[in-house]
Protein backbone atom coordinates (compact mmCIF):
# COMPACT_ATOMS: atom_id res chain seq x y z
CA UNK A 1 0.00 0.00 0.00
CA UNK A 2 1.22 3.49 -0.81
CA UNK A 3 0.29 6.40 1.43
CA UNK A 4 1.28 9.84 0.24
CA UNK A 5 0.97 12.26 3.12
CA UNK A 6 0.95 16.00 2.60
CA UNK A 7 3.93 15.92 0.24
CA UNK A 8 5.40 19.35 -0.39
CA UNK A 9 8.37 20.60 -2.37
CA UNK A 10 9.76 24.10 -2.49
CA UNK A 11 12.59 25.36 -4.68
CA UNK A 12 13.67 28.66 -3.21
CA UNK A 13 10.64 30.88 -3.58
CA UNK A 14 8.78 28.46 -5.86
CA UNK A 15 6.42 25.89 -4.40
CA UNK A 16 6.29 23.05 -6.92
CA UNK A 17 4.07 20.71 -4.91
CA UNK A 18 1.69 21.97 -2.22
CA UNK A 19 0.86 19.22 0.20
CA UNK A 20 -0.40 16.32 -1.90
CA UNK A 21 -2.06 13.34 -0.20
CA UNK A 22 -3.54 10.12 -1.59
CA UNK A 23 -3.60 6.41 -0.85
CA UNK A 24 -3.24 3.54 -3.32
CA UNK A 25 -3.83 -0.19 -2.90
CA UNK A 26 -2.15 -3.12 -4.68
CA UNK A 27 -3.60 -3.44 -8.18
CA UNK A 28 -4.44 0.24 -8.42
CA UNK A 29 -3.41 1.98 -11.62
CA UNK A 30 -3.27 5.66 -10.79
CA UNK A 31 -3.36 8.17 -13.61
CA UNK A 32 -1.57 11.36 -12.68
CA UNK A 33 -2.89 14.17 -14.84
CA UNK A 34 -1.70 17.72 -15.11
CA UNK A 35 -0.39 20.37 -17.45
CA UNK A 36 3.32 20.91 -18.00
CA UNK A 37 4.77 22.35 -14.82
CA UNK A 38 1.84 21.25 -12.68
CA UNK A 39 4.08 19.23 -10.35
CA UNK A 40 3.61 15.65 -11.60
CA UNK A 41 7.25 14.86 -12.19
CA UNK A 42 8.33 16.52 -8.94
CA UNK A 43 5.81 14.40 -7.04
CA UNK A 44 6.95 11.23 -8.79
CA UNK A 45 10.61 12.07 -8.15
CA UNK A 46 9.86 12.63 -4.47
CA UNK A 47 8.08 9.28 -4.18
CA UNK A 48 10.98 7.62 -5.99
CA UNK A 49 13.42 9.09 -3.41
CA UNK A 50 15.21 11.14 -6.06
CA UNK A 51 14.15 14.40 -4.46
CA UNK A 52 13.84 15.10 -0.78
CA UNK A 53 10.45 16.55 0.14
CA UNK A 54 10.45 19.91 1.89
CA UNK A 55 7.76 18.49 4.16
CA UNK A 56 5.37 15.56 4.24
CA UNK A 57 6.27 12.05 3.25
CA UNK A 58 5.18 8.89 1.46
CA UNK A 59 5.08 5.43 2.95
CA UNK A 60 5.29 2.31 0.82
CA UNK A 61 4.36 -0.88 2.66
CA UNK A 62 5.55 0.62 5.94
CA UNK A 63 8.81 2.06 4.56
CA UNK A 64 9.10 5.83 4.72
CA UNK A 65 10.80 7.60 1.79
CA UNK A 66 12.51 10.00 4.18
CA UNK A 67 13.70 7.59 6.83
CA UNK A 68 14.14 4.35 4.94
CA UNK A 69 14.83 5.26 1.31
CA UNK A 70 16.88 2.10 0.64
CA UNK A 71 13.95 -0.12 1.60
CA UNK A 72 11.61 1.97 -0.56
CA UNK A 73 14.02 1.70 -3.53
CA UNK A 74 13.99 -2.07 -3.28
CA UNK A 75 10.21 -1.98 -3.73
CA UNK A 76 9.86 0.50 -6.56
CA UNK A 77 10.55 0.68 -10.25
CA UNK A 78 10.97 4.11 -11.78
CA UNK A 79 10.63 4.87 -15.46
CA UNK A 80 11.18 8.54 -16.35
CA UNK A 81 10.02 10.11 -19.59
CA UNK A 82 13.42 9.51 -21.17
CA UNK A 83 15.09 6.21 -21.92
CA UNK A 84 18.58 6.83 -20.55
CA UNK A 85 19.90 3.57 -21.97
CA UNK A 86 23.56 2.63 -22.20
CA UNK A 87 24.92 2.07 -25.65
CA UNK A 88 27.44 -0.66 -26.46
CA UNK A 89 25.66 -3.15 -24.21
CA UNK A 90 23.32 -5.93 -25.17
CA UNK A 91 19.75 -6.13 -23.95
CA UNK A 92 20.42 -9.03 -21.57
CA UNK A 93 23.62 -7.40 -20.26
CA UNK A 94 21.71 -4.23 -19.51
CA UNK A 95 19.06 -6.14 -17.57
CA UNK A 96 21.69 -8.30 -15.88
CA UNK A 97 23.48 -5.16 -14.68
CA UNK A 98 20.32 -3.79 -13.07
CA UNK A 99 19.37 -7.19 -11.68
CA UNK A 100 22.79 -7.27 -10.00
CA UNK A 101 22.31 -3.76 -8.62
CA UNK A 102 18.97 -4.82 -7.19
CA UNK A 103 20.65 -7.83 -5.62
CA UNK A 104 18.78 -10.45 -7.58
CA UNK A 105 20.71 -13.66 -6.78
CA UNK A 106 23.13 -14.57 -9.60
CA UNK A 107 21.56 -18.02 -10.06
CA UNK A 108 18.10 -16.55 -10.62
CA UNK A 109 19.11 -13.73 -12.93
CA UNK A 110 18.91 -15.63 -16.20
CA UNK A 111 15.39 -16.80 -15.39
CA UNK A 112 14.32 -13.35 -14.21
CA UNK A 113 15.71 -11.73 -17.36
CA UNK A 114 13.94 -14.28 -19.55
CA UNK A 115 10.68 -13.64 -17.68
CA UNK A 116 10.75 -9.86 -18.00
CA UNK A 117 11.78 -10.11 -21.64
CA UNK A 118 8.83 -12.37 -22.28
CA UNK A 119 6.48 -10.06 -20.41
CA UNK A 120 7.68 -7.08 -22.42
CA UNK A 121 7.77 -9.09 -25.65
CA UNK A 122 11.49 -8.56 -26.18
CA UNK A 123 12.71 -12.16 -26.07
CA UNK A 124 13.83 -12.07 -29.70
CA UNK A 125 15.98 -9.03 -28.95
CA UNK A 126 17.81 -10.58 -26.01
CA UNK A 127 21.22 -10.47 -27.68
CA UNK A 128 20.65 -7.27 -29.66
CA UNK A 129 22.50 -4.09 -28.82
CA UNK A 130 20.38 -1.61 -26.92
CA UNK A 131 21.00 1.19 -29.43
CA UNK A 132 19.69 -0.98 -32.26
CA UNK A 133 16.18 -1.19 -30.75
CA UNK A 134 13.28 0.89 -32.02
CA UNK A 135 11.83 3.58 -29.77
CA UNK A 136 8.92 1.40 -28.72
CA UNK A 137 11.26 -1.48 -27.92
CA UNK A 138 13.56 0.81 -25.94
CA UNK A 139 10.53 1.97 -23.97
CA UNK A 140 9.62 -1.64 -23.24
CA UNK A 141 13.22 -2.38 -22.29
CA UNK A 142 13.02 0.50 -19.81
CA UNK A 143 9.93 -1.09 -18.36
CA UNK A 144 11.68 -4.47 -18.28
CA UNK A 145 14.51 -2.84 -16.34
CA UNK A 146 11.97 -1.57 -13.81
CA UNK A 147 10.61 -5.09 -13.39
CA UNK A 148 13.76 -7.16 -12.85
CA UNK A 149 13.45 -6.94 -9.06
CA UNK A 150 9.68 -7.51 -9.03
CA UNK A 151 8.77 -4.10 -7.56
CA UNK A 152 5.50 -3.46 -5.80
CA UNK A 153 5.24 0.13 -6.98
CA UNK A 154 5.85 1.31 -10.53
CA UNK A 155 6.31 5.01 -11.25
CA UNK A 156 5.89 5.64 -14.96
CA UNK A 157 6.42 9.24 -16.00
CA UNK A 158 4.90 9.90 -19.42
CA UNK A 159 5.54 6.34 -20.59
CA UNK A 160 3.70 6.74 -23.88
CA UNK A 161 5.36 9.93 -25.04
CA UNK A 162 6.79 9.67 -28.54
CA UNK A 163 5.40 6.21 -29.22
CA UNK A 164 3.44 5.28 -32.31
CA UNK A 165 -0.18 4.09 -31.92
CA UNK A 166 0.76 0.39 -32.00
CA UNK A 167 3.51 0.80 -29.40
CA UNK A 168 1.10 2.81 -27.27
CA UNK A 169 -1.52 0.10 -27.43
CA UNK A 170 1.07 -2.53 -26.47
CA UNK A 171 2.32 -0.42 -23.59
CA UNK A 172 -1.24 0.18 -22.41
CA UNK A 173 -1.92 -3.53 -22.38
CA UNK A 174 1.33 -4.15 -20.53
CA UNK A 175 0.49 -1.62 -17.83
CA UNK A 176 -2.98 -3.11 -17.43
CA UNK A 177 -1.35 -6.53 -17.04
CA UNK A 178 0.97 -5.16 -14.34
CA UNK A 179 -2.08 -3.87 -12.48
CA UNK A 180 -3.65 -7.32 -12.72
CA UNK A 181 -0.42 -8.72 -11.24
CA UNK A 182 -1.17 -6.71 -8.10
CA UNK A 183 1.36 -3.95 -8.54
CA UNK A 184 0.60 -0.34 -7.73
CA UNK A 185 1.19 1.66 -10.90
CA UNK A 186 1.39 5.44 -11.05
CA UNK A 187 1.25 6.74 -14.62
CA UNK A 188 1.55 10.36 -15.57
CA UNK A 189 0.38 11.28 -19.02
CA UNK A 190 -1.10 14.02 -21.12
CA UNK A 191 -3.04 11.57 -23.25
CA UNK A 192 -6.20 11.54 -21.19
CA UNK A 193 -8.41 9.15 -23.17
CA UNK A 194 -5.67 6.54 -22.91
CA UNK A 195 -5.39 6.96 -19.17
CA UNK A 196 -9.13 6.61 -18.79
CA UNK A 197 -8.91 3.25 -20.57
CA UNK A 198 -6.74 1.48 -18.05
CA UNK A 199 -6.54 3.62 -14.89
CA UNK A 200 -8.98 2.81 -12.12
CA UNK A 201 -7.98 5.90 -10.16
CA UNK A 202 -6.87 9.34 -11.26
CA UNK A 203 -5.44 12.42 -9.65
CA UNK A 204 -5.66 15.82 -11.30
CA UNK A 205 -2.93 18.24 -10.32
CA UNK A 206 -2.49 21.89 -11.09
CA UNK A 207 0.04 24.37 -9.74
CA UNK A 208 1.19 21.75 -7.26
CA UNK A 209 -2.27 21.11 -5.83
CA UNK A 210 -4.26 17.93 -6.18
CA UNK A 211 -7.62 19.19 -7.40
CA UNK A 212 -9.36 15.82 -7.56
CA UNK A 213 -8.41 12.27 -6.71
CA UNK A 214 -10.32 9.00 -6.84
CA UNK A 215 -11.94 6.52 -9.22
CA UNK A 216 -12.57 7.99 -12.67
CA UNK A 217 -16.33 7.47 -12.50
CA UNK A 218 -16.54 9.03 -9.06
CA UNK A 219 -14.66 12.14 -10.14
CA UNK A 220 -16.84 12.55 -13.20
CA UNK A 221 -19.93 11.97 -11.10
CA UNK A 222 -18.70 14.51 -8.60
CA UNK A 223 -18.47 17.11 -11.30
CA UNK A 224 -21.75 16.34 -12.98
CA UNK A 225 -24.74 16.84 -10.69
CA UNK A 226 -26.79 14.70 -13.07
CA UNK A 227 -26.10 11.66 -15.24
CA UNK A 228 -26.67 12.04 -18.92
CA UNK A 229 -28.69 9.29 -20.56
CA UNK A 230 -28.98 8.75 -24.28
CA UNK A 231 -32.21 7.08 -25.44
CA UNK A 232 -32.60 6.02 -29.08
CA UNK A 233 -36.01 5.01 -30.35
CA UNK A 234 -37.91 4.26 -33.54
CA UNK A 235 -40.45 6.72 -34.86
CA UNK A 236 -39.88 10.43 -34.64
CA UNK A 237 -42.42 12.12 -32.42
CA UNK A 238 -42.43 14.35 -29.39
CA UNK A 239 -44.61 11.99 -27.32
CA UNK A 240 -41.66 10.18 -25.88
CA UNK A 241 -40.10 13.49 -24.88
CA UNK A 242 -43.27 14.52 -23.00
CA UNK A 243 -43.54 11.06 -21.47
CA UNK A 244 -39.93 11.08 -20.21
CA UNK A 245 -40.18 14.64 -18.88
CA UNK A 246 -42.86 13.50 -16.48
CA UNK A 247 -40.90 10.58 -15.06
CA UNK A 248 -39.23 10.63 -11.62
CA UNK A 249 -35.60 11.90 -11.34
CA UNK A 250 -35.67 13.37 -14.83
CA UNK A 251 -34.29 16.91 -14.70
CA UNK A 252 -34.40 17.76 -18.35
CA UNK A 253 -34.95 16.25 -21.78
CA UNK A 254 -33.65 17.39 -25.11
CA UNK A 255 -34.10 16.02 -28.62
CA UNK A 256 -30.62 15.34 -29.89
CA UNK A 257 -31.80 14.53 -33.41
CA UNK A 258 -31.49 11.28 -35.31
CA UNK A 259 -34.09 9.65 -33.06
CA UNK A 260 -32.19 10.25 -29.87
CA UNK A 261 -33.14 11.89 -26.59
CA UNK A 262 -30.64 13.40 -24.16
CA UNK A 263 -31.97 12.97 -20.63
CA UNK A 264 -30.53 14.65 -17.52
CA UNK A 265 -31.11 12.12 -14.74
CA UNK A 266 -30.23 12.53 -11.08
CA UNK A 267 -30.48 9.01 -9.67
CA UNK A 268 -28.72 5.65 -9.73
CA UNK A 269 -28.78 2.59 -12.01
CA UNK A 270 -31.90 1.10 -10.38
CA UNK A 271 -33.96 4.15 -11.19
CA UNK A 272 -32.48 4.16 -14.71
CA UNK A 273 -33.78 0.59 -15.13
CA UNK A 274 -37.21 1.68 -13.88
CA UNK A 275 -37.23 4.55 -16.35
CA UNK A 276 -36.36 2.20 -19.23
CA UNK A 277 -39.07 -0.24 -18.15
CA UNK A 278 -41.68 2.47 -18.01
CA UNK A 279 -40.76 3.71 -21.51
CA UNK A 280 -40.98 0.21 -22.95
CA UNK A 281 -44.22 -0.53 -21.07
CA UNK A 282 -45.70 2.65 -22.54
CA UNK A 283 -45.19 1.16 -26.01
CA UNK A 284 -42.27 3.21 -27.26
CA UNK A 285 -39.83 1.28 -29.45
CA UNK A 286 -36.50 1.77 -27.69
CA UNK A 287 -33.44 0.57 -29.59
CA UNK A 288 -30.77 2.15 -27.44
CA UNK A 289 -30.45 3.21 -23.83
CA UNK A 290 -27.08 4.16 -22.33
CA UNK A 291 -25.44 6.42 -19.84
CA UNK A 292 -22.96 8.79 -21.44
CA UNK A 293 -19.38 7.63 -20.81
CA UNK A 294 -17.29 9.48 -18.30
CA UNK A 295 -15.01 11.83 -20.21
CA UNK A 296 -11.77 12.46 -18.39
CA UNK A 297 -10.83 15.20 -20.79
CA UNK A 298 -13.97 17.17 -19.96
CA UNK A 299 -13.30 16.72 -16.25
CA UNK A 300 -9.70 17.84 -16.67
CA UNK A 301 -10.63 20.90 -18.65
CA UNK A 302 -13.38 21.77 -16.21
CA UNK A 303 -11.18 21.44 -13.15
CA UNK A 304 -8.03 23.09 -14.42
CA UNK A 305 -7.51 26.60 -15.62
CA UNK A 306 -4.44 25.91 -17.72
CA UNK A 307 -2.55 28.46 -15.68
CA UNK A 308 0.72 26.54 -15.91
CA UNK A 309 2.01 25.48 -19.32
Amino acid at each position, binding site marked *: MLEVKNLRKE*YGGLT*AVRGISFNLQPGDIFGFIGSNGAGKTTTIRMISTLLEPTSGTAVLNGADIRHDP*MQVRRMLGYMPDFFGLY*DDVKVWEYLDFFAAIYQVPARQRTQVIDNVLELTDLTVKKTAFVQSLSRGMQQRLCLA*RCLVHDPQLLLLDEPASGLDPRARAELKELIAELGRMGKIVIVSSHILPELADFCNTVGIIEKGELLACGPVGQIVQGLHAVRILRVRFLGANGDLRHFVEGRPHVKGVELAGDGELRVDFDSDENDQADLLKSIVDAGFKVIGFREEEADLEDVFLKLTTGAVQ
Partner: protein
Amino acid sequence: MVEVTRFRRKFFGTGGSAVNGVIVAMSLLIYIGILALVWTYRQDANPILLIYLQTFLFTLLGPAMLHSSIAGERERRSWDFLLVAPVTHGQIVSGKLMGAAAAILACAAVLLLPIGIGALFYDRSHSYFGASSNGTSSFMFLWNLAMAELVSISWGFAVSAMTLLFSARCKRGFVALGTVLAIMVAALIVWPILISAAEVRSSEAGGILNFFHPFWTLAQIESANTSPSEDILWERMYGVPQIVTYIGMTLIFLYWTEKTLRFADGEVKFLPKHKDA
Protein backbone atom coordinates in the same frame (compact mmCIF):
# COMPACT_ATOMS: atom_id res chain seq x y z
CA MET B 1 31.85 -4.47 -15.18
CA VAL B 2 29.38 -2.85 -17.54
CA GLU B 3 31.77 0.10 -17.77
CA VAL B 4 34.62 -2.25 -18.69
CA THR B 5 32.43 -4.09 -21.22
CA ARG B 6 31.32 -0.82 -22.81
CA PHE B 7 34.90 0.49 -22.94
CA ARG B 8 36.12 -2.78 -24.42
CA ARG B 9 33.34 -2.78 -27.04
CA LYS B 10 33.88 0.88 -27.83
CA PHE B 11 37.60 0.67 -28.45
CA PHE B 12 38.56 -2.98 -28.66
CA GLY B 13 35.44 -4.65 -30.04
CA THR B 14 36.14 -6.88 -33.02
CA GLY B 15 32.55 -6.95 -34.25
CA GLY B 16 32.17 -3.17 -34.42
CA SER B 17 33.47 -0.53 -36.77
CA ALA B 18 36.69 -0.65 -38.80
CA VAL B 19 38.21 1.84 -36.35
CA ASN B 20 37.81 -0.68 -33.55
CA GLY B 21 39.51 -3.32 -35.66
CA VAL B 22 42.41 -0.98 -36.34
CA ILE B 23 42.77 -0.19 -32.62
CA VAL B 24 42.75 -3.90 -31.75
CA ALA B 25 45.28 -4.70 -34.48
CA MET B 26 47.56 -1.81 -33.51
CA SER B 27 47.45 -2.71 -29.81
CA LEU B 28 48.35 -6.30 -30.61
CA LEU B 29 51.10 -5.21 -32.99
CA ILE B 30 52.61 -2.83 -30.43
CA TYR B 31 52.48 -5.49 -27.74
CA ILE B 32 54.11 -8.12 -29.95
CA GLY B 33 56.69 -5.52 -30.99
CA ILE B 34 57.50 -4.76 -27.34
CA LEU B 35 57.80 -8.48 -26.60
CA ALA B 36 60.09 -9.05 -29.57
CA LEU B 37 62.21 -6.04 -28.72
CA VAL B 38 62.55 -7.02 -25.07
CA TRP B 39 63.41 -10.60 -25.99
CA THR B 40 65.97 -9.58 -28.60
CA TYR B 41 67.73 -7.09 -26.32
CA ARG B 42 66.89 -8.84 -23.08
CA GLN B 43 70.25 -8.13 -21.49
CA ASP B 44 69.80 -4.41 -22.10
CA ALA B 45 66.04 -4.24 -21.53
CA ASN B 46 65.69 -2.41 -18.24
CA PRO B 47 62.27 -3.48 -16.91
CA ILE B 48 61.80 -0.12 -15.20
CA LEU B 49 61.70 1.49 -18.63
CA LEU B 50 58.71 -0.69 -19.40
CA ILE B 51 57.12 0.52 -16.19
CA TYR B 52 57.61 4.07 -17.48
CA LEU B 53 55.63 3.08 -20.53
CA GLN B 54 53.00 1.40 -18.36
CA THR B 55 52.68 4.52 -16.19
CA PHE B 56 52.18 6.63 -19.28
CA LEU B 57 49.45 4.23 -20.40
CA PHE B 58 47.75 4.41 -17.00
CA THR B 59 47.87 8.21 -17.14
CA LEU B 60 45.69 8.01 -20.24
CA LEU B 61 43.66 4.87 -19.52
CA GLY B 62 41.92 6.14 -16.34
CA PRO B 63 40.70 9.39 -17.93
CA ALA B 64 39.73 7.58 -21.14
CA MET B 65 37.57 5.14 -19.20
CA LEU B 66 36.08 7.36 -16.53
CA HIS B 67 35.69 10.87 -17.95
CA SER B 68 32.09 10.10 -18.87
CA SER B 69 31.32 7.70 -16.06
CA ILE B 70 29.19 10.19 -14.12
CA ALA B 71 28.92 13.18 -16.46
CA GLY B 72 27.97 10.78 -19.26
CA GLU B 73 25.32 9.15 -17.08
CA ARG B 74 23.83 12.59 -16.57
CA GLU B 75 24.11 13.45 -20.25
CA ARG B 76 22.29 10.34 -21.38
CA ARG B 77 20.03 10.66 -18.31
CA SER B 78 20.65 7.17 -17.02
CA TRP B 79 21.89 8.63 -13.74
CA ASP B 80 18.42 8.56 -12.18
CA PHE B 81 18.30 4.79 -12.59
CA LEU B 82 21.36 4.40 -10.40
CA LEU B 83 20.12 6.90 -7.85
CA VAL B 84 16.79 5.08 -7.40
CA ALA B 85 18.54 1.72 -7.04
CA PRO B 86 19.18 0.41 -3.52
CA VAL B 87 22.86 1.32 -3.62
CA THR B 88 24.65 4.10 -1.77
CA HIS B 89 26.52 6.87 -3.52
CA GLY B 90 29.69 5.41 -2.09
CA GLN B 91 28.94 2.09 -3.77
CA ILE B 92 28.24 3.80 -7.08
CA VAL B 93 31.50 5.75 -6.93
CA SER B 94 33.65 2.84 -5.81
CA GLY B 95 31.95 0.59 -8.41
CA LYS B 96 32.90 3.07 -11.14
CA LEU B 97 36.50 3.15 -9.92
CA MET B 98 36.63 -0.62 -9.73
CA GLY B 99 35.88 -0.76 -13.44
CA ALA B 100 38.96 1.35 -14.18
CA ALA B 101 40.99 -0.49 -11.53
CA ALA B 102 40.16 -3.81 -13.20
CA ALA B 103 41.34 -2.44 -16.54
CA ILE B 104 44.54 -1.06 -14.97
CA LEU B 105 45.30 -4.37 -13.28
CA ALA B 106 44.57 -6.28 -16.49
CA CYS B 107 46.90 -3.96 -18.39
CA ALA B 108 49.57 -4.42 -15.69
CA ALA B 109 49.14 -8.19 -15.92
CA VAL B 110 49.59 -8.11 -19.71
CA LEU B 111 52.77 -6.02 -19.37
CA LEU B 112 54.09 -8.32 -16.67
CA LEU B 113 55.44 -10.68 -19.34
CA PRO B 114 57.91 -8.25 -20.96
CA ILE B 115 58.73 -6.79 -17.53
CA GLY B 116 59.38 -10.32 -16.26
CA ILE B 117 61.70 -11.03 -19.21
CA GLY B 118 63.58 -7.83 -18.38
CA ALA B 119 63.71 -8.74 -14.70
CA LEU B 120 65.19 -12.17 -15.47
CA PHE B 121 67.73 -11.30 -18.15
CA TYR B 122 68.65 -7.65 -17.64
CA ASP B 123 72.36 -7.19 -17.02
CA ARG B 124 72.41 -5.05 -13.89
CA SER B 125 76.11 -4.29 -14.11
CA HIS B 126 75.43 -1.38 -16.42
CA SER B 127 72.88 1.30 -16.25
CA TYR B 128 70.43 2.25 -18.93
CA PHE B 129 72.44 5.34 -19.75
CA GLY B 130 75.57 3.31 -20.33
CA ALA B 131 77.45 4.47 -17.27
CA SER B 132 78.89 1.42 -15.62
CA SER B 133 78.10 0.81 -12.00
CA ASN B 134 78.31 -1.93 -9.46
CA GLY B 135 74.61 -2.62 -9.67
CA THR B 136 72.40 -3.57 -6.77
CA SER B 137 71.71 -7.00 -5.29
CA SER B 138 69.13 -9.27 -6.91
CA PHE B 139 66.83 -8.89 -3.95
CA MET B 140 67.01 -5.09 -4.01
CA PHE B 141 66.58 -5.09 -7.77
CA LEU B 142 63.38 -7.11 -7.52
CA TRP B 143 62.23 -5.09 -4.53
CA ASN B 144 62.74 -1.86 -6.43
CA LEU B 145 60.97 -3.34 -9.43
CA ALA B 146 58.00 -4.22 -7.24
CA MET B 147 58.04 -0.71 -5.79
CA ALA B 148 58.10 0.77 -9.29
CA GLU B 149 55.19 -1.44 -10.32
CA LEU B 150 53.21 -0.36 -7.26
CA VAL B 151 54.02 3.30 -7.89
CA SER B 152 52.73 2.88 -11.42
CA ILE B 153 49.52 1.09 -10.39
CA SER B 154 48.75 3.39 -7.46
CA TRP B 155 49.35 6.38 -9.77
CA GLY B 156 46.86 4.87 -12.20
CA PHE B 157 44.30 4.56 -9.40
CA ALA B 158 44.86 8.16 -8.27
CA VAL B 159 44.46 9.52 -11.80
CA SER B 160 41.31 7.43 -12.25
CA ALA B 161 39.84 8.68 -8.97
CA MET B 162 40.65 12.27 -9.95
CA THR B 163 38.92 11.72 -13.30
CA LEU B 164 35.89 10.38 -11.45
CA LEU B 165 35.79 13.52 -9.33
CA PHE B 166 35.86 15.78 -12.38
CA SER B 167 33.28 13.59 -14.06
CA ALA B 168 31.04 14.15 -11.04
CA ARG B 169 31.63 17.88 -10.97
CA CYS B 170 31.49 18.66 -14.70
CA LYS B 171 28.35 18.80 -16.77
CA ARG B 172 29.93 17.22 -19.84
CA GLY B 173 32.21 14.22 -20.08
CA PHE B 174 34.59 15.88 -22.52
CA VAL B 175 34.97 18.86 -20.19
CA ALA B 176 36.03 16.43 -17.46
CA LEU B 177 38.46 14.72 -19.86
CA GLY B 178 39.92 18.04 -20.99
CA THR B 179 40.33 19.21 -17.40
CA VAL B 180 42.08 16.02 -16.29
CA LEU B 181 44.39 15.98 -19.32
CA ALA B 182 45.22 19.66 -18.76
CA ILE B 183 46.10 18.89 -15.14
CA MET B 184 48.25 15.96 -16.29
CA VAL B 185 50.11 18.11 -18.80
CA ALA B 186 50.61 20.82 -16.17
CA ALA B 187 51.75 18.40 -13.48
CA LEU B 188 53.86 16.05 -15.57
CA ILE B 189 55.35 18.37 -18.20
CA VAL B 190 54.93 22.07 -17.37
CA TRP B 191 55.80 21.78 -13.68
CA PRO B 192 59.13 19.94 -14.21
CA ILE B 193 60.02 22.47 -16.92
CA LEU B 194 59.35 25.32 -14.49
CA ILE B 195 61.45 23.64 -11.82
CA SER B 196 64.20 23.12 -14.33
CA ALA B 197 63.97 26.73 -15.47
CA ALA B 198 64.20 27.87 -11.85
CA GLU B 199 67.46 25.89 -11.66
CA VAL B 200 66.66 24.13 -8.43
CA ARG B 201 69.96 22.42 -7.73
CA SER B 202 69.42 20.96 -4.27
CA SER B 203 68.35 17.32 -4.50
CA GLU B 204 66.17 17.72 -1.37
CA ALA B 205 64.33 20.66 -2.90
CA GLY B 206 64.00 18.75 -6.17
CA GLY B 207 62.65 15.77 -4.26
CA ILE B 208 60.03 17.87 -2.52
CA LEU B 209 59.00 19.76 -5.64
CA ASN B 210 58.75 16.58 -7.69
CA PHE B 211 57.28 14.45 -4.95
CA PHE B 212 54.02 13.75 -6.79
CA HIS B 213 55.71 13.12 -10.13
CA PRO B 214 55.53 9.39 -10.90
CA PHE B 215 58.25 9.49 -13.54
CA TRP B 216 60.59 11.30 -11.18
CA THR B 217 59.88 8.60 -8.58
CA LEU B 218 60.59 5.89 -11.14
CA ALA B 219 63.82 7.66 -12.02
CA GLN B 220 64.79 7.65 -8.34
CA ILE B 221 64.12 3.92 -8.13
CA GLU B 222 66.09 3.37 -11.32
CA SER B 223 69.01 5.33 -9.93
CA ALA B 224 68.84 3.27 -6.74
CA ASN B 225 69.31 0.18 -8.89
CA THR B 226 72.29 1.51 -10.76
CA SER B 227 73.90 3.43 -7.90
CA PRO B 228 72.98 1.70 -4.67
CA SER B 229 73.42 3.82 -1.60
CA GLU B 230 75.06 2.86 1.64
CA ASP B 231 71.82 3.26 3.49
CA ILE B 232 69.89 0.09 2.64
CA LEU B 233 66.76 1.07 4.58
CA TRP B 234 66.50 4.37 2.76
CA GLU B 235 67.02 2.58 -0.54
CA ARG B 236 64.14 0.24 0.23
CA MET B 237 61.92 3.20 0.98
CA TYR B 238 62.11 4.64 -2.54
CA GLY B 239 58.58 4.93 -3.87
CA VAL B 240 56.81 4.02 -0.63
CA PRO B 241 55.84 7.61 0.30
CA GLN B 242 54.51 8.11 -3.21
CA ILE B 243 52.52 4.85 -3.11
CA VAL B 244 50.98 5.87 0.20
CA THR B 245 50.30 9.37 -1.13
CA TYR B 246 48.70 8.09 -4.34
CA ILE B 247 46.47 5.69 -2.39
CA GLY B 248 45.60 8.54 -0.01
CA MET B 249 44.78 10.77 -2.98
CA THR B 250 42.61 8.00 -4.41
CA LEU B 251 40.63 7.78 -1.18
CA ILE B 252 40.31 11.56 -0.89
CA PHE B 253 39.10 11.88 -4.49
CA LEU B 254 36.59 9.07 -3.93
CA TYR B 255 35.29 10.71 -0.77
CA TRP B 256 35.07 14.07 -2.50
CA THR B 257 33.20 12.53 -5.41
CA GLU B 258 30.78 10.82 -3.06
CA LYS B 259 30.25 14.14 -1.25
CA THR B 260 29.54 15.78 -4.60
CA LEU B 261 26.79 13.26 -5.27
CA ARG B 262 25.33 13.63 -1.81
CA PHE B 263 23.43 16.78 -2.77
CA ALA B 264 20.36 15.06 -4.20
CA ASP B 265 18.67 18.30 -5.23
CA GLY B 266 21.96 19.51 -6.64
CA GLU B 267 21.71 16.82 -9.28
CA VAL B 268 18.93 18.83 -10.88
CA LYS B 269 21.34 21.55 -11.89
CA PHE B 270 23.27 19.13 -14.08
CA LEU B 271 20.23 17.98 -15.99
CA PRO B 272 19.06 19.69 -19.14
CA LYS B 273 16.07 21.94 -18.55
CA HIS B 274 12.99 19.82 -18.44
CA LYS B 275 9.70 21.22 -19.58
CA ASP B 276 7.78 19.41 -16.85
CA ALA B 277 8.07 20.29 -13.16
